[in-house]
């Protein structure tokens, strides 16, 4: 990055690309050419900046100006004003929602203030398709250090000392996993990167792979060195085409530079990486199912032990880590275990990436130190609840995490605290709910997902989850009894207790946590036949308030099913047996004469 005087970094994450960031790059390049500045200003498409809510993002270096919600047609103004005249384009700057001031540098924004970026260190900084840029930010230094200065045992010791735990959900100590794999002798061993990110709404792994693919390759090579494995495999879902493309480019470049292949850094160490594509089954994130899928078998889990570290891919010792876990490794090697242990809590070291979603102002990708509280994440970084609504719950850990409430907001986030609170870390999904969300419906939504995604191998998960879903459905229709709640809890507990893999062992969590935290809401559905959040259609009734109705007939005309009758200038009537509760009448009525009971 020496030749150019200025750089324009344009977010090339999947989200921003969906908002035409490709065209922004083209327009910027065209403008620069028109002005004869192509040799002085470079436009780079980077990985995700994280602040997806305000994308597409364009960042100008060296002055760190952070432009939000940029459109291709803003290119001319950006070049004219910022690049040529040196004046920031005010209208494209982020405005602090409270102080109403423009903030030009991202490090002063609430969204970024509390973040520490380790796994995401290069996302939004480098061109992921250019290995030189990765190397420019200390890339492959850790691998060199391992091969030239450390024994495999040293490497494992550093990872063990760092306290790094698996970021894919289980939280198993990574160093210990490496050690087990290293101790199992075999003619061939494998390192597998689990990039089968399956939680709906989660895109941590995708963003890392799109924004910094070399970090993962370097870490896999380090793991290969530590465990004496010469082959690496990345299991990635085929729905991640951009990540796949960038990984392929990265693998080619690394091979070209001798960073993968034989005699890496002039040593005897040999390591290469291949890609394996998944069809997007959630259960294939479970490591034994993932391995079966890679082997061309049905993607379903088998009982552990044997663990993959003993008998994994093709029956050989295999170390499986998640993308984010790997992304931490090179930094830990470079900066030392001691540095890493200073971040985080006693038993959960380092940072964690979360995908913030739901009823929150700043939807996006964040990385915070372990121990940050849910309140800080939701209200400071996340900017609070959308439209000034009241916070109701936050669901962590993906579709089989639990729903935590107000009382958990000051819990420092780490693996163990979340489990103690009735949820889990999972891979880092975080979905925020407000007062309008019905917790029974929310549970039903998650169960719908697990029912779809169960592999079908074990009976409690295959059938039990379906039965949970059906009973929740009965509750949302006002057809359940209080005894059913007892049965619901028992089914949940048995499914957790008897399922074969982590999917079924956690799928009842949304129900159990909402039974614990929102018992009254369940009872309201059953006893009062009411949905307190007003979401369950079967429990709603649209009625006309006689005093307010002027008989304008607007509602009757808009009703798609002819449920509303009444003469002109007479009070109208909604037939509940016909009404489909679409809400069109309420929207049309100018006299607030229709309410939902």
């Amino acid at each position, binding site marked *: 990055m020496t030749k150019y005087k200025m750089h324009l970094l344009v977010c090339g994450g999947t989200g921003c690309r969906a908002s035409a960031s490709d065209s922004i790059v083209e327009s910027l390049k065209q403008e620069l050419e028109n002005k004869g500045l192509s040799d002085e200003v470079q436009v780079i498409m980077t990985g995700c900046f994280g602040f997806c809510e305000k994308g597409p993002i364009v960042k100008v270096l060296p002055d760190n100006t952070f432009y939000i919600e940029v459109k291709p047609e803003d290119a001319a103004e950006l070049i004219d004003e910022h690049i040529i005249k040196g004046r920031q384009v005010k209208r494209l700057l982020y405005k602090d929602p409270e102080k109403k001031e423009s903030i030009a540098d991202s490090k002063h924004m609430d969204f970024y203030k509390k973040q520490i970026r380790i796994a995401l260190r290069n996302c939004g900084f480098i061109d992921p398709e250019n290995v030189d840029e990765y190397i420019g930010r200390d890339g492959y230094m850790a691998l060199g250090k391992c091969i030239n200065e450390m024994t495999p045992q040293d490497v494992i010791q550093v990872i063990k000392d760092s306290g790094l735990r698996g970021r894919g959900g289980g939280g198993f100590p990574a160093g210990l996993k490496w050690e087990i794999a290293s101790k199992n002798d075999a003619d061939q061993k494998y390192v597998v990167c689990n990039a089968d990110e399956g939680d709906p709404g989660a895109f941590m792994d995708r963003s890392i792979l799109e924004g910094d693919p070399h970090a993962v390759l370097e870490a896999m090579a380090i793991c290969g060195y530590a465990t004496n494995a010469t082959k690496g495999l990345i299991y990635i879902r085929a729905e991640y085409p951009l990540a796949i493309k960038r990984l392929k480019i990265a693998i080619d470049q690394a091979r070209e530079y001798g960073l993968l292949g034989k005699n890496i850094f002039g040593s005897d160490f040999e390591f290469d990486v291949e890609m394996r594509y998944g069809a997007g089954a959630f259960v294939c994130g479970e490591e034994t199912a993932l391995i079966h899928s890679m082997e061309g078998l*049905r993607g379903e889990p088998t009982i552990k032990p044997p663990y993959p570290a003993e008998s994994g891919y093709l029956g050989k010792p295999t170390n499986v880590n998640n993308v984010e876990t790997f992304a931490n490794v090179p930094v830990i090697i470079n900066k030392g275990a001691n540095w890493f242990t200073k971040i985080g809590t006693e038993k959960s070291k380092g940072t964690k990436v979360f995908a913030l979603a739901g009823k929150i102002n700043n939807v996006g990708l964040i990385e915070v130190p372990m121990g940050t509280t849910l309140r800080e994440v939701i209200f400071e970084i996340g900017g609070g609840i959308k439209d000034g609504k009241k916070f109701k719950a936050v669901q962590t850990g993906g579709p089989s995490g639990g729903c935590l409430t107000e009382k958990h907001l000051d819990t420092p986030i780490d693996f163990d605290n979340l489990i103690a609170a009735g949820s889990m870390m999972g891979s880092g999904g975080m979905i925020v709910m407000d007062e309008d969300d019905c917790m029974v419906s929310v549970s039903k939504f998650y169960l719908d997902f697990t*029912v779809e995604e*169960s592999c079908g191998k074990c009976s409690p998960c295959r*059938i039990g989850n*379906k*039965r949970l879903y059906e009973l929740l459905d009965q509750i949302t229709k006002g057809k359940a009894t209080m005894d059913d709640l007892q049965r619901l809890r028992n089914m949940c507990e*048995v499914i957790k*207790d*008897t399922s*074969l893999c982590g999917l079924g062992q956690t799928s009842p969590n949304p129900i159990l946590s909402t039974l614990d935290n929102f018992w009254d809401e369940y009872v309201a559905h059953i006893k009062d036949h009411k949905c307190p959040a007003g979401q369950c259609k079967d429990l709603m009734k649209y009625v006309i308030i006689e005093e307010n109705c002027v008989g304008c007939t607007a509602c009757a005309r808009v009703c798609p099913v002819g449920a509303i009758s009444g003469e002109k200038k007479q009070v109208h009537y909604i037939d509940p047996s016909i009404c489909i509760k679409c809400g069109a009448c309420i929207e049309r009525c100018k006299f607030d004469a229709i309410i939902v009971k």
Partner: protein
Amino acid sequence: MEKVKLTIDNKQIEVEKGTTIYKAAKQLGIDIPVLCYMNLEDLGIENKPGGCRICVVEVEGGRNLAPSCSTKVWDGMVVNTHSMRVINARRTVMEFILSDHPKDCLTCAKSGNCELQDMAVKLGIREVPGEEYAEMSEYKIDFSPSLIRDLDKCIMCRRCEMMCNEFQTVGALSAFNRGFEAAVGPAFEMDIEHSPCTYCGQCVAVCPTGALTEKDHTRDVINALADPTKTVIVQTAPAVRAALGEEFGLEAGSRVTGEMVAALRRLGFDYVFDTDFAADLTIMEEGTELLDRLTKHLNGDKEVKLPILTSCCPAWVSFFEHNFPEMKDIPSSARSPQQMFGSIAKTYFADKIEVKREDLVVVSIMPCLAKKYEAQRDEFKVDGNPDVDFSISTRELAHLIKEANLDIKTLPKEEFDTPLGESTGAGVIFGATGGVIEAATRTAYELHTGKKIENIDFKQLRGLEGIRKATVDFDGTPINIGIAHGLGNARKLLEDIKAGKSEFHAIEIMSCPGGCIGGGGQPLHHSDSGILKARMKAIYEEDADKPIRKSHENPYIIKLYEEFLGKPMSEKAHHLLHTCYFDRSRKVEIS
């Protein structure tokens, strides 16, 4: 072997390292209920996907319950197999399974013999809560000549899949779909007829529910017996007599040959004959073919194909037609005993009793489901009229006998009719793995050497090993014999032949574990391999009791050749007793 000590239900035990909790508990006499788990110990067949979760137990210190069928013990392990937590879990899981299972037990083929039904009783299930709104998975019923698949009743135990893929290496069945929709069947949910299925019926033999059952032909048999214009004759395969008694509460291995004959006669069959007669005939043809090829080979003929492979087993025939069509000239061209019988019955015998072919109905009682398919193959029909009209299994026969208010236990012993009911000990042992080749050896030895065999029991050919090898000294000429039961074992021998590595002169192959005694049409063994051993013992006892034990000494066989066929491999014999094979490898269709 390293030992580990553990405690199960407060009882101490020391077992070998690597033992599962289930097996350790069994040693203590503790009965942990299992559903998907299946173990045919003597055959090395074990199914333990850990899928049904009925066998879960509480292991101290464990977060969740552990499946005892697939969890290995460790030193100091403390297990509770019947705590209230476990009992509640088992019941709840069973309620889940039953909530997705049809309740048509009254008309289900498996009723009374259903492991799921038994388990529901055992676990005290009296109702399935939420049944009124519980969705059931639904599939179309798949009919085939041999078996019927009703996947609504599939509980995903995966036993059939394991038998089809691991034991048989046929690969017709595997799990498809995900989650609630998951079931086991051919790829792309094809019909079984369009899959590489050989109809060996081992899937049916292990299915714990009514998801896989035989195609029932008892109604056809009743109709034929009731028709006064028809002469109905029956042939019974050797393995049937060694297993039929089990259906009537007799101990496994009870021989009920005479009682079976009596029952068949009382059911109204006009002639009760024995497939063993046709087995002797098979030996005459197949043995002659073996000798012919062998002699040519020993005389240095490079064209002759060796080893010769037996061809009595119809599932095995389908298997090589599907998987090794390029080798279809290696097996003996001799038809199976069932088909030889049908062919002779509808020519030689029909002429003798002066009944027109179309008025003669041949019913076969087989331990096998592939025989149903074999009977309707086009090669075995004359102008559309099959040599064997209906093939029913041992289980179906038991139903017929019971329906007629007969009981094998109280019937007198009766003799088969002549001429097609007379057989030798060689014909009997066709029912067990190794039996066909032993029978062939008895005859081939004497015909080749011109000497009497001194010791007729070729014990080296017997047993339950999946692949067995033996060398028989033909008066100075060593003959290498191979035996495989289970198509997976057969595949290994075939691959060797293909690679030119086979050292055998002759190989016997049977599809089912233990041979026909473990056939897909036999009384269900419910994963007790001791039953197969007992049946095998009964077969060899039957052989030992026979006055004549070599096929070529069967007087009615000798007479058949004199009166009708001429000599083995004659043109007439070729026409009536031999067949050809087809390439079925491209029959996989995706609809």
